[in-house]
C-alpha cells in the first residue's frame, strides 16, 4: 500500500514539475516522461505484487474536513484495474514526447502534462476508493482533468464544442452516480461501502440502474456514448489513447464494483447488462463502419468493445443469479481480460492514428492511402492492433472473446437460460465479423493502396518516442495472445473474489488457455517457416514492383481505388433502420459520363434522438424563462435575497 501511494506521489511530482520548467521545452518533456515512468513502474510493481501475494486489510484512511473520511483499499479488483493505468499511462506520456512538438506551445504542453498526471492519479485513486465520498471525489477529478486535456487545442471552435459536450455528459453522468449514492445513503445512513449489501432488493435495483446510467455514460454504453466520437477527434492523440484505453474502463470498473458491493440476487442485473452490451456492441461497430474519420471510427469502436466487455460481465451476472458458476467465472474473466486487452490495442490504435494525423495532416481515411510504405512501423503496429481488436487469433483480443464465447456456450449447454446466452453468442459473432470488416476498411484504405492526396504521399515515419510506445504495445498484444496463461491467472484471481466463482477450479481455465497458446505458437511457427521459405525460394529471382491496383493498366489513377465509403456502403445500408445515412448521388446519364459525385454522411441516431427529446424541450423551457435574465444587477441581488428568505422560511 505504501509503495502504491509513493508511486502516486511520484507521478504527481512528474506532473507538477513541468509547470515550473516549461521554459526548457525538451528538458521538461524528458523529465516528465522519466518521472512518470518511474512512478508508474513502482505502481505496477505494487499492483502486481499485491495480485501475486495478496495482503489482508490493505486499507488506509484519513479524515477530511472533520466529518468525512478519505478511505483507500487495495483489493484484487483494484490491483487488476491499476495494471492498465500504470502500463498505458507512461507509454502515452512517452508517446507525447514527440507528439507535442510545438515549442511555442510549451506552456500549454506543461499544463497538459499536469492534468495528465492528475488524471492518472485520480484514476488510480478511483480504483482503490473505499467509500462513496472518495469514489465521488476521484470520479469528479478524473472527469475534470480529462476535460482540460480534451480542450488542449482550445482556440479551435470545434474542439471547444466537443469539450463542452464531454463536460455536459461527464457532469450529467456524475449526477446519476450521485443520485445512486443518495439512494444508497438513504438506505444505509453511511457513506461507507461496507453495509451496501444489506439494502432491500428493490432499492438495490434502483441504485444499480442509476449508477449504471452514470457509469455507463463514462464508459460509452450505447445511447450515452455521444461524447466519445466528438471528444476523441478533438483531443490530442496521447490523451485519446489514455481516455479510450483506460479512462472509459473506469466506468466498467464502477459497474463491477457496484455490482459486487450490492451483491444483488435476481437475473434482471445480468439481463440489463447483456442487453446494453448487445446494443453497444453491434451498433458501435456499425457506426464505426459508417464513419470515415480515423479517430471517430476508433471512438465508435471503443463503444463496440465496451459492448463486448458488458456482454462478458452480463453473462457473469447471469451466471451468478442462476447459480451457474462456470458461466459466471468465464463471463467475468472474459470481460475483465477484455478490459485489459482493449486498453492495450485501443491505445495502440489511437497512437497509430495520432502519428498518421501528425504526419499526413488529416484523419479522413478517404484522403489517405499507401501509408504502410512511408510509415512502416506505424503501419505494422497499427495492423497488429487492428487484427487484435477484430478478435482474431493469435492476438490478445481473441483470448478474451474466446473466454466469453466459452462462458456463453457453457451456459447454453448447462441450461441456465436459453435466450440470452444464445443472443450473446450471436451478437459476439456479428460484432466480430463487422469489426473485422471495419478494420480491413481502415487498414486497407488508409495504409494500403496508393496515397490519395499530396499530404498522404508526403507522410514520413514519426518520432522514435512514438514508435517505441507503439512497438511496446504491439508486442504486448502478441505476448498476451500467444502466452495468455499468466494473464488468465491474474484475471482468475480477481474473479475468485466473487463468492460464486470459488467453486470453479482454475484448471478449467488453464487447460483451455494452454490449448490457445499451443495453437498460437503453431500458427506463428508455420507463418515464420512460410515466410522463410518464400524468402528462400524467391531469392535471386527477378522481381518487379508495380503500383497497387495497377492490374495491368498502364495509367492507373489513385481514384480507382476502393474508398472507405464504397467499401462499407453495403453493410451500412443493411443496418439502415439503426443508422441514418444521407446519400447524394448525381447518377450517370450518358454513355461517356461526365463528372459525377457520390456523397454519404452518417449521422448518429442516438445523437439526434437526444437532441430531439432532451435538448429541444430544455431549450424551449429556458427560452420562455429568458425574461428573468434582464441585466439589472440590483434585481439579481434581490433574487438571491428572495431565494435565501424562501429557504429560511421553508425550514
Amino acid at each position, binding site marked *: 500500500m505504501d509503495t502504491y501511494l509513493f508511486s502516486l506521489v511520484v507521478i504527481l511530482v512528474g506532473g507538477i514539475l513541468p509547470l515550473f520548467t516549461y521554459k526548457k521545452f525538451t528538458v521538461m518533456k524528458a523529465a516528465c516522461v522519466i518521472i512518470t515512468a518511474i512512478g508508474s513502474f513502482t505502481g505496477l510493481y505494487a499492483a502486481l505484487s499485491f495480485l501475486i501475494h495478496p495482503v489482508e486489510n490493505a486499507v488506509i484512511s484519513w479524515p477530511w474536513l472533520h466529518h468525512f473520511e478519505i478511505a483507500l483499499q487495495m483489493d484484487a479488483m483494484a490491483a487488476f484495474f491499476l495494471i492498465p493505468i500504470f502500463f498505458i499511462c507512461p507509454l502515452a506520456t512517452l508517446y507525447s514526447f514527440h507528439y507535442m512538438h510545438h515549442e511555442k506551445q510549451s506552456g500549454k504542453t506543461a499544463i497538459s502534462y499536469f492534468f495528465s498526471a492528475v488524471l492518472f492519479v485520480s484514476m488510480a485513486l478511483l480504483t482503490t476508493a473505499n467509500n462513496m465520498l472518495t469514489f465521488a471525489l476521484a470520479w469528479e477529478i478524473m472527469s475534470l482533468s480529462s476535460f482540460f486535456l480534451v480542450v488542449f487545442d482550445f482556440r479551435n471552435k470545434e474542439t471547444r464544442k466537443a469539450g463542452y459536450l464531454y463536460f455536459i455528459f461527464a457532469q450529467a453522468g456524475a449526477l446519476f452516480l450521485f443520485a445512486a449514492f443518495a439512494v444508497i445513503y438513504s438506505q444505509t445512513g453511511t457513506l461507507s461501502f461496507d453495509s451496501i449489501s444489506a439494502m432491500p432488493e428493490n432499492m438495490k435495483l434502483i441504485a444499480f440502474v442509476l449508477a449504471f446510467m452514470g457509469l455507463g455514460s463514462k464508459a460509452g454504453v450505447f445511447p450515452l456514448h455521444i461524447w466519445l466520437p466528438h471528444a476523441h477527434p478533438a483531443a490530442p492523440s496521447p490523451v485519446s489513447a489514455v481516455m479510450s484505453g483506460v479512462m472509459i474502463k473506469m466506468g466498467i470498473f464502477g459497474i463491477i464494483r457496484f455490482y459486487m458491493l450490492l451483491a444483488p440476487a435476481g437475473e434482471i442485473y445480468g439481463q440489463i447488462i447483456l442487453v446494453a452490451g448487445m446494443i453497444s456492441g453491434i451498433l458501435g461497430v456499425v457506426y464505426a463502419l459508417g464513419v470515415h474519420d480515423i479517430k471517430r471510427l476508433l471512438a465508435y469502436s471503443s463503444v463496440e468493445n465496451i459492448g463486448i466487455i458488458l456482454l462478458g460481465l452480463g453473462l457473469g451476472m447471469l451466471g451468478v443469479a442462476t447459480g451457474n458458476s462456470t458461466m459466471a467465472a468465464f463471463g467475468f474473466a472474459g470481460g475483465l481480460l477484455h478490459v485489459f486487452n482493449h486498453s492495450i490495442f485501443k491505445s495502440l490504435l489511437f497512437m497509430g492514428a495520432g502519428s498518421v494525423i501528425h504526419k499526413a495532416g488529416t484523419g479522413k481515411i478517404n484522403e489517405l492511402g499507401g501509408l504502410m510504405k512511408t510509415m512502416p512501423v506505424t503501419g505494422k503496429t497499427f495492423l497488429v492492433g487492428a487484427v487484435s481488436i477484430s478478435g482474431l487469433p493469435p492476438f490478445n483480443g481473441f483470448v478474451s472473446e474466446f473466454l466469453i464465447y466459452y462462458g456463453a456456450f457453457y451456459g447454453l449447454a448447462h441450461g441456465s437460460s436459453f435466450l440470452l446466452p444464445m443472443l450473446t453468442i450471436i451478437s459476439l459473432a456479428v460484432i466480430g465479423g463487422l469489426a473485422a470488416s471495419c478494420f480491413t476498411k481502415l487498414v486497407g484504405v488508409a495504409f494500403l493502396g496508393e496515397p490519395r492526396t499530396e499530404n498522404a504521399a508526403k507522410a514520413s515515419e514519426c518520432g522514435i518516442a512514438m514508435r517505441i510506445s507503439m512497438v511496446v504495445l504491439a508486442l504486448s498484444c502478441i505476448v498476451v495472445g500467444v502466452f495468455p496463461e499468466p494473464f488468465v491467472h491474474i484475471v482468475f484471481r480477481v474473479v475468485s473474489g466473487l463468492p460464486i466463482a470459488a467453486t470453479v477450479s482454475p484448471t478449467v481455465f488453464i487447460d483451455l488457455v494452454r490449448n490457445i497458446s499451443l495453437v498460437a505458437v503453431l500458427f506463428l511457427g508455420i507463418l515464420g517457416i512460410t515466410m522463410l521459405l518464400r524468402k528462400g525460394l524467391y531469392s535471386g529471382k527477378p522481381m518487379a514492383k508495380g503500383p497497387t491496383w495497377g492490374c495491368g493498366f498502364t495509367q492507373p489513377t489513385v481514384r480507382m481505388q476502393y474508398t472507405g465509403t464504397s467499401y462499407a456502403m453495403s453493410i451500412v445500408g443493411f443496418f439502415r433502420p439503426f443508422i441514418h445515412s444521407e446519400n447524394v448521388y448525381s447518377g450517370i446519364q450518358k454513355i461517356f459520363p461526365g463528372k459525377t459525385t457520390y456523397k454519404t454522411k452518417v449521422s448518429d441516431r442516438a445523437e439526434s434522438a437526444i437532441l430531439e427529446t432532451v435538448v429541444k424541450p430544455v431549450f424551449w423551457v429556458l427560452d420562455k424563462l429568458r425574461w428573468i435574465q434582464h441585466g439589472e*444587477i*440590483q434585481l439579481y*441581488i*434581490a433574487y438571491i435575497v428572495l431565494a435565501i428568505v424562501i429557504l429560511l422560511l421553508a425550514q
Partner: protein
Amino acid sequence: MIHLTDVILSITILSVLLTLGSNRLMALVKIIALQGVLVSLTPLFMEHHDKLTGGILFLTPITVAIKGLVIPAFLFFAVKKASIRREIEPIISYHASLFAGLAMILVSAFIVDRLPLNLPGSHALLLITGITTLAAGLLLMMGRRKGITQVIGYLMLENGIYLIGTALAREVHTLHVLEFGILLDLLAGVMIMGIILTNINRAFDDMDTSLLMRLKD
C-alpha cells in the same frame, strides 16, 4: 458598566445606518474602513477569547490591515480615478433606506430572539449586529446604481457574515478557519469587482451598473 464590546457594536450599527443614509462616495469609503477595523477587532473582546492565543495575535493585525487599509485604499483610488463624487438617483431612496435599516435592527433582534440558540450574554447583541449589517449590505447592493456603492455593500455583507461567524463559532480553531476563509473571499471579490468596475468605467464613462443592461443580447 459599559462593556467595550457594546461600544464597538453600537458604533458598527451606527456606521451601518450612516452608509444607508449617505450619498457621498468618499464618505462611504471612510465609513467602511472604520467599520472594517471595528469588526475585525470584535473577536478580541469576546468573552470566550480571553486567552489571547497566538492565532488571534497573528490574525487580527492581518485582518485589520486588509479590512481597514488595503481594501479601502483600493476603493479610494477607484473613486479618485473615476472622478465621481456622489450617488445619484438611488433605486431605493435615502430615507427609505434609513427606515429599512431601522426596521432591520428590529427584525434581526426578533430573529435572534426566536432562534433556538443559547448564546452567552453579548453574543446575542453581536448576532443582531451581524444580521443587520448583512441585510444592510444586501440592501445597499440592491438599492444603489454606482458600482462603488455596490462593492461597499458587498463589503458590508461580508462584515456581517464575519460578525455572525464570530458569534456562532464555538471553538477558537473553527473561528480562525472561518475568518480567514471570509477574508480571502473578500479580497478576491473586491479584486474582481475592481476589474469589472474599471471596465465598466472605461466602456461607458460611468460606473452605473445598470448600463450593463446594454450588454444583453
